[in-house]
């Protein structure tokens, strides 16, 4: 369904315009790592997810929220400002956006080494350049947590 050609003409134009406005990211970095079954995995979602009681995201927010890995599903809310994506899937099952239960299963089976104690959430509608300093800050935290596989999941 999310094939660009399946969108309405105005919707297609919206997404194509976003492509036209992209900055030049330069060469793609590619960092090697250990085998998958030795890796420590963290999720960074851009779904505007946060723990109940934490600050909701503002329009244009480029900051992030910390999601402790043991946060119960009942305490996860979404305050993304966009109204142009489905939320009913998330309302039914957090794993459709934030696959923490699936990740735990794969860790249990030894497919991955371990799961980070903390995960993070941005709000995807943030201005791209504004994300860079926050991403650097976050990378420092991830390194301290010995994370060597970050899963980036959009909405």
């Amino acid at each position, binding site marked *: *369904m*999310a*094939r*660009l050609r399946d969108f309405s003409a*105005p919707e297609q134009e919206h*997404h*194509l315009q*976003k492509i036209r406005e*992209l900055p030049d*990211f330069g060469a*793609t*970095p*590619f960092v*090697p*790592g250990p085998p*998958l079954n030795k890796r420590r995995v963290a999720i*960074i979602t*851009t779904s505007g997810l946060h723990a*109940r009681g934490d600050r*909701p995201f*503002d*329009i244009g927010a480029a900051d992030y929220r910390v999601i402790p890995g043991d946060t119960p599903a*009942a305490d996860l*809310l*979404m*305050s993304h*400002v*966009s*109204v*142009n*994506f*489905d*939320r*009913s*899937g*998330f*309302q*039914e099952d957090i*794993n*459709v*956006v934030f*696959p923490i*239960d*699936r990740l735990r*299963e*794969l860790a249990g089976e030894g*497919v991955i080494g371990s799961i980070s104690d903390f995960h993070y959430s941005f709000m995807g509608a943030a201005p791209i350049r504004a*994300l*860079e300093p926050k*991403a*650097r800050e976050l*990378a420092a935290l991830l*390194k301290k947590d010995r994370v060597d*596989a*970050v*899963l*980036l*999941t*959009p*909405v």
Partner: protein
Amino acid sequence: MGALGHYIEREGIPTAQISLIREQTAAIKPSRALWVPFMLGRPFGAPNEPDFQRSVLRALLSLFERPSGPVLEDFSEDAPAAAAQEEGFACPVSFVPVTAGGRGLARAMWEEIAQLATWYSLARKRRGRTTVGVFGATVADAARHVASYVDGAPDAPPVAGWSAGMAVKRACDDVKAYYYEAVAAQPGNLAAKAVEDWFWRETAAAKAFLAIRDICLKSDDESLKPLGKLSLIPRFVTDGLNRAQQEQHTT
């Protein structure tokens, strides 16, 4: 999403991302990406489909085993669609057709909320959770705020530091989440699109949101203006309104 991948990988941490719009990802060229053909909002395919979610997750994780990049791979399997009712859905709760503005509109929304209460409680019990709670503790908190706008006397934001715009946006999100969660508990298995169409075409709440959108567009408050353009009403609804207005002008 692709931008974050660049920034984090540049700091020395391997990343792999889900891509929902392939053209955007192809333009950004992140280190590792798995394009999936799912609807926006569902990067792991479908709710309550653990086997399918695992297959997406495993395909994503497998990108870490590639020797070089950038990698942009396609996950070509469509998300499982439960035998869902796609269209023609009429909510068994019979709402009164909404023609009134102002107080009549707010009253109609309160009436809908009352009629959906049993379904909402059932959904909450079955799922063990609710996603209502961004604005306040209950849907009533949010609905009061929405009603205050429709009634022409907007309440102040409930939290210090919240702009008027963010407060009313969060109130609308909570009201909408309540309706979506409630209707999902009714018999039948509704497709996401059917619920969306029902909400935006048939409910007083959606009409209240449209009224708030008009207030935002005319407002001098800098926090309300962007809501009118972008963040209250989905593009498929505003595109339809724009088309209808153009047709009115040309006939």
